[in-house]
């Protein structure tokens, strides 16, 4: 079951312009299934844009993406967009059994404040057509999985930042997605909440085997969580290096002082310094 849930991603020939500037040109990327992949790179290299294109929130100017066995997003030429082509893209998107979860950096803007925390978590299931009982059962499972100790019948704005981001993660996982995208999920949180949530994320990952793709602005955090660290260059963005870190899970605070961790982090920092300047 562990290996079934997560799927791999392959991006080929991805091209994206920002106005006149080239952000990505003929960019290729592979993301292994059932692994945690962290993306790290200099400011403005388009990490979020890459994530949004993979999640289908942004349309690339060219290129192809494959999720597991299916092609989900095909590129379009910048000027001409045929009607037929567009609808066929939409069709393949709708029929797709590959499910995506997405956690935004700014939980305050991403959660629905008019719904209670539990209703937020249920919302993706509601639009997927699940019955009330099924939804309740799924939320119960998630509460158990994440060992939630606060009241989910409260509204998001009544919760702390860490609790809100936890609710966001639970919402993203409620449909049991094959891939979970996280865009700097800890950058708006205090250190205590970050430690707690990233360990819960690791636990849930170990239990489910979902493919996780996360953007991080903190190299220590990236190496701590990741199996693969993708180091990107500055614009036009290329993949500088794929660093593999295979320490055992669950990783703990002890991992942070192990020689393998220290050397991986040092090496990544060196690559980053070289490519960012």
């Amino acid at each position, binding site marked *: 079951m562990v290996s079934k849930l997560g799927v791999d991603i392959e991006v080929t020939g991805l091209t994206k312009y920002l106005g006149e500037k080239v952000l990505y040109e003929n960019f290729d990327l592979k993301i292994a299934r059932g692994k945690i992949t962290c993306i790290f790179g200099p400011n403005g290299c388009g990490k979020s844009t890459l994530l949004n294109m993979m999640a289908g929130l942004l349309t690339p100017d060219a290129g192809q993406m494959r999720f597991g066995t299916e092609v989900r997003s095909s590129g379009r030429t910048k000027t001409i967009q045929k009607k037929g082509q567009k609808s066929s893209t939409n069709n393949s998107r709708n029929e797709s059994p590959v499910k995506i979860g997405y956690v935004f950096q700014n939980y305050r*803007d991403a959660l629905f404040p008019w719904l209670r925390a539990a209703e937020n978590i249920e919302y993706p299931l509601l639009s997927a057509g699940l019955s009330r009982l099924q939804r309740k059962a799924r939320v119960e499972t998630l509460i158990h999985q994440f060992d939630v100790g606060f009241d989910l019948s409260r509204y998001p704005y009544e919760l702390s930042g860490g609790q809100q981001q936890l609710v966001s993660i639970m919402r993203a996982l409620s449909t049991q997605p094959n891939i979970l995208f996280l865009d700097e999920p800890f950058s708006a949180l205090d250190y205590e909440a970050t430690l707690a949530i990233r360990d819960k994320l690791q636990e849930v990952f170990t239990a489910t085997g979902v493919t996780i793709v996360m953007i991080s602005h903190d190299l220590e955090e990236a190496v701590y969580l990741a199996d693969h660290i993708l180091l990107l260059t500055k614009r036009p963005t290329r993949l500088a290096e794929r660093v593999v870190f295979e320490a055992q899970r669950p990783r703990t605070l002890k991992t942070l002082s192990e020689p393998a961790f220290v050397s991986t982090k040092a090496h990544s920092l060196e690559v980053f310094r070289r490519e960012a300047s």
Partner: protein
Amino acid sequence: MQYPRQQTTEQPIQEKSYLSNFSTKLSPFLVANTGTLVFLFIWWLVTALGIIQAVLLPTPIATFSSLWAGITSGDLLLDFWLTLYRTLYAFVIASILGIPLGLLLGANEKLYKSFEFLIDFFRSTPATAMFPLFLVVFGIGDFSKVAVAAFAGALVVFFNVAYGVMNTRKTRIMAAKVMGVPKWRVFVDVIFFETLPQTFIGLRTAVSLTLVVIIVAEMFVGSTNGMGQRIIDAQQVFDMPGMYASIIATGVMGYGLNQFFLLTENKFIHWKGQ
């Protein structure tokens, strides 16, 4: 030596705590109403000293007894009700027209842009300038007054709703999209709720505006009843206490409507400002 000292220290403390107890009970009322009480006192003082002639400014007592007489005899209540009825009638029409149009144009930025000049033009045109036109179209009856007020209110509702839709937080829409929620559901489940706070601002502004237009229409556009007519009738016969009483009653209506909307707003849009 010690005994008297104890007494002197204890007594003021007792007195103080009694006083502070009294003032904590009274202070919220005082904080909220001192301004009003001072205003009423100055009003009374000015009339009692004869600084302003009674023809221009009657005493508070004469005014409030006139108000009381109007209420007990029922004729002020009838006018009050008629004005309230017209205002709410106009407001309902304004909402029925303004909300769907605002949602529609707010969601289609190109469509909104193409109407932008027209919208700004009519928003800047005083609604009262439209009276003659509406009189021609709807006749001299009650409905032409309601129609002008509804027109003015609908523009305000429309503008606020459209503005609200255009300024929805993109992250929440993206969050719903990435869940695979169909477009119409994003609109109903996310954009509509995102727009609610701004919609309520529009509704609150619109109800105040429709009241203004209705009062003016009642004064000058061939009316035989309503608070506007009542105020101007009292002025014509120099019934100053009656005029002031009617002005106060109209103020109560405006204040009440505004408070009602604020309370509804705070109850339904609990997430506002969070």
